[in-house]
C-alpha cells in the first residue's frame, strides 16, 4: 500500500540536454566556492587594512608629540620682551571690545564643549583643532 502511494508521488521530468544541466550545476557550484574564497580574501584584506590604519594612528600620535616638542623648544617671549628685543616691530594690542567679544565667544565654545561627551577621542581632537585654529587666527 505504501509503495503504491510512493509510486504515485513519483514525477518524471524530461531533460532535453542533461549535459548542459550538469554543466550549469557544476559551474554554479564553482561560482559559489569562488565567492566563499573571495569572502575569505576580503576578510584578510580588511584585517590588513585595520593593521595599516592602526600603524597610521600610532605614527600620527608620535608626530603630534614631536610637533608639540618642537613647539615647546621654540623660544617664547612676552610682548614686552619682544619689544625690547626688536624695537622696530609694531605690536598691536587688541581692543577691549574685541577682547570682550572673544571672551564671550570663548565662553559659548566652552559651554558647547562641556555639553559634548567628555573624554572621547573625537572630542579631544575637535578641541585640539579649534585651539590650533584660534592660535592661527591670532598670528
Amino acid at each position, binding site marked *: 500500500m505504501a509503495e503504491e502511494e510512493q509510486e504515485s508521488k513519483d514525477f518524471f521530468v524530461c*531533460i532535453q540536454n542533461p549535459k548542459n544541466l550538469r554543466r550549469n550545476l557544476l559551474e554554479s557550484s564553482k561560482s559559489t566556492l569562488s565567492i566563499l574564497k573571495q569572502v575569505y580574501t*576580503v576578510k584578510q584584506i580588511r584585517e590588513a*587594512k585595520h593593521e595599516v590604519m592602526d600603524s*597610521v594612528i600610532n*605614527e600620527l600620535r608620535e608626530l603630534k608629540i614631536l610637533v608639540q616638542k618642537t613647539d615647546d623648544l621654540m623660544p617664547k617671549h612676552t610682548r614686552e620682551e619682544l619689544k625690547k628685543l626688536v624695537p622696530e616691530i609694531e*605690536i598691536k594690542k*587688541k581692543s577691549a571690545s574685541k577682547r570682550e567679544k572673544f571672551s564671550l565667544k570663548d565662553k559659548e565654545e566652552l559651554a558647547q564643549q562641556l555639553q559634548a561627551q567628555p573624554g572621547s577621542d573625537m572630542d579631544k581632537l575637535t578641541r585640539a583643532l579649534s585651539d590650533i585654529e584660534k592660535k592661527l587666527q591670532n598670528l
Partner: protein
Amino acid sequence: MISESKPIFVKIDKYKEIIEIVEVINKKVAGVKQLLAEFEELRTKEEEELNNWEKNLDEITHKIELMKEELSSE
C-alpha cells in the same frame, strides 16, 4: 599681534635638538605616506574582490535560471 610678518632673529637654545626632531618628523611623514599608499592598494584590491563577488553572483543567478528553464520545459 605683530602687524607685519618681518624676519626676526631669536635665540634658540636647543637648535640642534629642534633640527633633529624636524628630521624625525620628516621621516615619520614619509612613513605615513607609505602607509597610506599601502592602504590605497588594499582598498583597490578589496574593491576588485567585491566586483568579482558580484560577477560570480550574477553568474550563479543566470545558471540557476537556465537550470530552472531546463527542468520546467516539456
